[in-house]
């Protein structure tokens, strides 16, 4: 199918493909929702149904190849892991398809724009918050994402750098919670049995922090322990609400980059200049700004 | 010259002393028959010789040399081959593959395997393609394929454990021919069978086992004496059946029954079968292998869907769609292949015996174990099943006793019509007489019995009428005393030349 071309050679209809690493994470579902929402602003851009790699790099590579086969006008990729997607992105690049790498990087320069959060920075912010919450030091437990995932590595690294500011803050235990709430609960139950004094739980995402919260609440220790999460989704079951409810002390919005991606795609397709590296900041969610942030990011009813 | 000598062989299973100090010698070119009740230890003794069991007591000498036989491979190295009582073929492989299993070249030589297979099959009178899969072969064919497999090896001692239990007369005669060829070449044959008339014809010597012990041996076959040795007591009448006595009402009526066949599983088609059985009557079904006897019984039992015809039971229309419906109407089928069709081998005697009649022991929602056990116990005692206990695993019983458990299962359903497919297959003379007595009793108590058997003497002596099947049609019907073996065989071979 040859896209119809207008008189000036520029197309009047653009097709964009998006390969998502795993639709079934709430954060990524939110990203998808937002991307669809923000692309609506541009009626000449059609977003193909989002391809879900279900956490498999092999699947994602062939999805990217599918999009190349379909000759999309632009491609957005949220890689499961950097290395595996590198060659696929290079293939797209070779096929002269502009690529926006969203959220996680690839190991090549051959893309048009990278948009993503900075997990080390977010980890650092979380660590700084911990330092603030524990001025006299204290015992911290850390619930990690899947150990080999880059965000896990970065969120851990930033956090440890930041808490080094107060040597009296110690991480007394850390385990892999695999990003899952139901994994975090029994781990926290065990920690509560093992350690008489836990002052703060750092979860690499909100579900894990909340899973730990459930365990602490059951043991009647939720009041004495502070919980910090990451992601800050504006959904009823998400981190912003949890901060509002006082379950989490803080969470840090991991920016989806959806709006930036939509704008960037539009610019690229119309031949305008874009920044190649767009690193997004984070916003700390506290009880005060939670309602406002929720409203800002809530897209239910808008799609 | 002595080829084989087994000395003081002993073997125990958990809870069972199967063999105790048994001696056996066999000479070159000799046919030694092994005789004994079900569970006497015949198969166990031969399995030891064939290397099935790793450990046993006693010594084995082959051609004067002490031999270690602890695996089938070692047995084969000593020139021992065995046709097992339970068929041991791989259903998904072809006949040729099965015959050469374990002895192939590293890279298969299909052509020569198939040629040799065709030759062996021809020698046994089987006209089958070597590439045919075993699962497509009938049971009798499989038994002959087992024979072919044993013959394909370079044997010194050939053990045949009930090789004829599924064979009809013609095939049995052909098998004898093969055995005579072998003995002429000096091969020693050990032959196990419960058909005493066969022993008369083929055996040079008979060795009798009882309760795992060597009782004695004879070189002439004196029926009564052998039975006395086997059973340890004089036997009642072999065929206890009073003449006549079929005054009952018509119980089963089959009219114009046709059932499609299925070449993929070797099932014969039935065409236009009509018959009746009255209460109190024993009706026999004779025929050659593949004549459709089993199909007939199975169709009446609701296993196959008839394409035409009607059946009525006690005057009411009867159209069973499954065995369950047949059982609910008071029909029972003692199936041909107890291992495949009748028993859950891994479960206990009581589990199997009560499986079809569980509804009778229900108290509210649960099975009343006490009533169940009591009923099974009674039946097991009546049938004289030799088992260490009701909870014993059925698969570890001897073949004949397994058959009795099957009978117990069906008697517990208190059927009005019993269909029996080879009910005495693999059963010792004592038990056979018991089963015959049971058939008579059943008939006398007003039940209808329809029995298919390959043993003509059994049919002739037990039945009030005999129907003869050939290629799925009834070709003759004889009243009691109305025909000899020849007439029946002739009717059984009345093949029609041209058909649809």
């Amino acid at each position, binding site marked *: 199918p040859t896209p119809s071309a207008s008189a000036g050679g520029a197309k009047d209809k653009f097709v964009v493909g998006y390969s998502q690493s795993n*639709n*079934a*994470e*709430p954060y*990524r*579902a*939110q990203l998808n929702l937002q991307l669809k929402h923000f692309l609506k602003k541009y009626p000449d851009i059609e977003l193909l149904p989002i391809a879900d790699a279900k956490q498999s790099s092999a699947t994602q590579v062939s999805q990217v190849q599918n999009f190349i086969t379909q000759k999309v006008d632009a491609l957005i990729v949220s890689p499961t892991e950097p290395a595996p997607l590198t060659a696929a992105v290079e293939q797209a690049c070779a096929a002269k398809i502009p690529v926006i790498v969203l959220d996680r990087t690839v190991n090549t320069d051959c893309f048009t724009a990278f948009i993503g959060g900075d997990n080390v920075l977010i980890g650092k912010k979380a660590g700084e918050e911990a330092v603030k919450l524990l001025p006299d030091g204290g015992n911290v437990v850390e619930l990690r994402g899947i*150990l080999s995932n880059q965000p896990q590595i970065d969120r851990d690294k930033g956090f440890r750098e930041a808490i080094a500011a107060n040597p009296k803050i110690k991480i007394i*235990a850390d*385990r892999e919670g695999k990003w*899952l*709430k*139901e994994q975090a*609960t*029994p781990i926290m*139950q*065990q920690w509560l*049995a093992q350690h008489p004094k836990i002052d703060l739980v750092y979860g690499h995402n909100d*579900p894990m922090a*909340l899973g730990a919260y*459930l*365990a602490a*609440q*059951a*043991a009647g220790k939720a009041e004495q322990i502070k919980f910090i999460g990451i992601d800050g989704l504006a*959904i*009823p*079951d998400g981190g912003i609400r949890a901060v509002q409810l006082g379950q989490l002390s803080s969470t840090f919005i991991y920016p989806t980059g959806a709006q930036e991606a939509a704008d960037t795609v539009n610019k690229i397709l119309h031949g305008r200049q874009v920044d190649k590296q767009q690193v997004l900041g984070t916003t700390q969610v506290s009880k005060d700004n939670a309602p406002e942030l929720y409203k800002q990011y809530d897209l239910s009813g808008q799609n | 010259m002595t080829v084989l000598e087994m000395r003081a062989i002993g073997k125990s299973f*958990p*809870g069972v002393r199967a063999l105790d100090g048994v001696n056996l010698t066999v000479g070159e070119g000799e046919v030694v028959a092994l005789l004994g009740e079900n569970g006497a230890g015949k198969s166990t003794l031969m399995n030891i010789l064939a290397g099935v*069991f*790793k*450990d046993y007591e006693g010594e084995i000498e082959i051609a004067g040399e002490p031999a270690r036989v602890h695996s089938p491979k070692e047995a084969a190295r000593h020139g021992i081959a065995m046709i097992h009582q339970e068929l041991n073929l791989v259903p998904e492989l072809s006949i040729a593959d099965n015959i050469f299993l374990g002895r192939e070249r590293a890279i298969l030589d299909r052509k020569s395997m198939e040629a040799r297979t065709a030759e062996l099959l021809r020698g046994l009178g089987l006209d089958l393609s070597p590439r045919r899969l075993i699962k497509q072969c009938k049971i009798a064919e499989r038994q002959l394929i087992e024979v072919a497999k044993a013959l394909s090896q370079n044997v010194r001692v050939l053990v045949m454990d009930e090789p004829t239990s599924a064979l009809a007369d013609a095939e049995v005669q052909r098998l004898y021919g093969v055995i005579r060829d072998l003995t002429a070449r000096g091969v020693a044959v050990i032959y196990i069978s419960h058909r005493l008339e066969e022993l008369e014809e083929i055996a040079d010597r008979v060795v009798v086992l009882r309760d795992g012990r060597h009782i004695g041996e004879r070189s002439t076959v004196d029926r009564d004496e052998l039975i006395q040795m086997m059973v340890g007591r004089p036997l009642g009448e072999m065929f206890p059946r009073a003449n006549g006595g079929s005054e009952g009402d018509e119980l089963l009526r089959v009219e114009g029954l046709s059932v499609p066949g299925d070449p993929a599983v070797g099932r014969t088609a039935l065409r236009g079968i009509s018959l009746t059985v009255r209460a109190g009557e024993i009706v026999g079904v004779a025929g050659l292998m593949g004549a459709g006897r089993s199909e007939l019984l199975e169709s009446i*039992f609701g*296993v196959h869907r008839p394409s035409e015809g009607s059946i009525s039971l006690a005057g009411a229309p009867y159209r069973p769609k*499954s*065995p*369950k419906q*047949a059982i*609910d109407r008071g029909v029972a089928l003692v*199936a041909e292949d107890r291992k*495949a*069709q*009748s*028993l*859950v*081998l*891994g*479960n206990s005697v009581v*589990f199997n015996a*009560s*499986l079809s009649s569980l*509804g009778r022991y*229900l108290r509210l*929602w*649960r*099975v009343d174990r006490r009533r169940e056990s009591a009923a099974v116990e009674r039946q097991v005692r009546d049938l004289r099943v030799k088992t260490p*206990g009701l909870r014993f695993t059925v698969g570890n019983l001897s073949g004949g006793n397994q058959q009795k458990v099957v009978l117990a*299962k069906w008697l517990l*359903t208190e059927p009005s019509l019993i269909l029996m497919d080879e009910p005495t297959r693999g059963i010792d003379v004592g038990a056979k007489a018991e089963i015959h007595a049971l058939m008579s009793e059943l008939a006398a108590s007003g039940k209808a019995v329809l029995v298919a058997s390959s043993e003509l003497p059994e049919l002739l002596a037990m039945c009030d009428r005999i129907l003869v099947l050939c290629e799925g049609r009834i070709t003759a019907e004889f009243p009691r005393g109305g025909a000899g073996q020849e007439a029946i065989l002739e009717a059984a071979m009345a093949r029609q030349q041209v058909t649809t």
Partner: protein
Amino acid sequence: MTLATTESRTRRTLSALGAAQAYIGLVLILAVGIATKGEMFLNETNLTNAVGAFASRGILAVGVTLVILTGGIDLSVGSLLGIASMTAAMMLSKYSLEPWQIVPICMVVGAFFGFLNGAGTTWLRIQSFVMTLAMLSVVRGLDRQVSDNVSVGTQIAGPDGKLTPQAEAFQLFGTPGHNLFDRVYYPVLAFVVVCVVFHLILAKTRFGRHVYAVGGNPTAARLSGVNVTAVTIAVFTLSGLLAGFAGPIDAAYSASADPQAGQSYELDAIAAAVIGGASLAGGKGTIAGTFVGALILTLLDNVLGLNAVSDNWQLVIKGLIVVVAVVLQRPDLFKFLRGGSRS
């Protein structure tokens, strides 16, 4: 005579030992737990927590055991649990149904898909592995579609900012810290009750016998008057029903239904059954065994966690201990160790 009595005594001792051995693996893990962590391991809270975390998978394992006994396998239970937990959360959040209304609805949902599994394996004669693998995929897709890939919380606040009465009551299904009569943790209770009920069904009823018969020898079962098709459909339906029953427990445990919930639970469930002695060839296994298998898996996790074994080594040790536990459970262990022949 003497022979017979000696022999029967030996047999009785052996079979008693056999029963004891079925628990050796479990005893071993308990012993390690007590030896290394003492009180911290052996106290009601810890054990309740440990078993509670596995309860929904344990319930799945009971259903899977039924299917395995008939010689089939059910890979879809994780997905069925997922859709049931999503159903529960949605019924609660959208329609404010009472918990006692939610559970039957979830069970019907589970049973419906279970029934389809049974229909596919019998009427369409598809191998259960394929049929339930396909169902795993289909149901997960539906789950994600209805939830729009967003997890749904169950701690629904009313206009007063407090939990609604329904949400409050729903927590009793397993949110940590919420106990029936302030005493009994529902997931553990539910798991035990399910085990007892299905143990009785298998051991005492005609249906139970038929399940074993179908698994042991389907041809013989059919010719003995067992409706093999009906039994097969029934076990798949029951497996689905139990997955539906477990759904609300899973939702309450996490206080939310995740579109991913239950993923790969089927492996845990099957593992519990098989460690408990069920044979994938069918006809062999018990609910008591599955119960022990589930305890082995969950307490193993617990003991390793309490001992702060690193995540990587946990995987290694868990695999090794499962092997050891299974070997220890062999009823003919002693004979085997003596190097006895094959039976």
